[in-house]
């Protein structure tokens, strides 16, 4: 089964790196959308069917935490699992993001196997 994925990162280069690594990992992707910040991501998520969001934390305009709060306020979008892909790795910051309902966390730099394991586990839990 292939999943529609939305990649949210202010770095175009990093969005491409994530997209390629996910492809190499063997995790099946259907349509892949890109957004440069949380605001753009919300606009795309309101108009497309998205199964999974992979998001950075530190972004201009609307950061990852603000985007997650907005998603959770929206009855239609709250169902979309969010996985953060970020350089942040402190225990306190992880507690904060998981308290917001983030489903997974991957620290940059990452290996394809790490991505596949995290994403497959989450989508299995979703019943997909």
């Amino acid at each position, binding site marked *: 089964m292939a999943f529609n994925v939305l990649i949210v990162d202010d*770095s*175009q*280069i*990093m969005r*491409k*790196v994530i997209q*390629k690594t996910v492809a190499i990992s063997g995790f099946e992707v259907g349509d892949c959308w890109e957004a440069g910040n949380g605001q753009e991501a919300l606009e795309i998520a309101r108009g497309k069917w998205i199964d999974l969001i992979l998001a950075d934390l*530190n972004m*201009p305009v609307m950061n990852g935490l603000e985007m997650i709060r907005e998603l959770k306020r929206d009855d239609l979008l709250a169902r979309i699992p969010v996985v953060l892909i*970020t*350089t*942040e*790795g*402190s*225990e*306190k*910051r992880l507690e904060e993001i998981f308290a917001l309902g983030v489903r997974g966390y991957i*620290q*940059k*730099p*990452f*290996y394809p196997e790490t991505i596949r394991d995290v994403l497959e586990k989450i989508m299995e839990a979703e019943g997909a």
Partner: protein
Amino acid sequence: MLEGIEKKAVQVTLKVFETMFFMPLSVIEEDDEATAGSAGSNLSSLRGEIEFSGPSSGRLMLSLPRDLVNTLAGGALSDGEGAITEAHLLDTVNELCNMICGNLLSTIDNKSVWDLSLPKTLSDPFPENEGEAGNRIVNLNFEADDYPLRLQIQWTE
């Protein structure tokens, strides 16, 4: 807290380049630095910079030749996505600084929260003045694909 910082910085830098850009690096030892410096002196370089704060504060700078950044950006972009632009080059250097700095700090202390600035990339070389008095400075030199790279971390407790 900064014990073994050089070793940790080397490990993190190698991992970032190899894992995210499939670019193996080698460390240049002190004895070889003069040779590496002269080899790269004629190359146009980009210098990325990111500031951090938390249990301690400071900044990390990474300098690398424009041609190498072009190779890294080209590897990340797929065929058919157009020419590599200056924005792609700056984006690549910024992301390298962000990943190296973020990983290094969480390797040093993952209990505390570190705040990183948005990285910026400049076309000028490393500043002659290597930090203020009392700062701890870490200088590391690498080589990738015959290009020299330089990493500097300045710590203010």
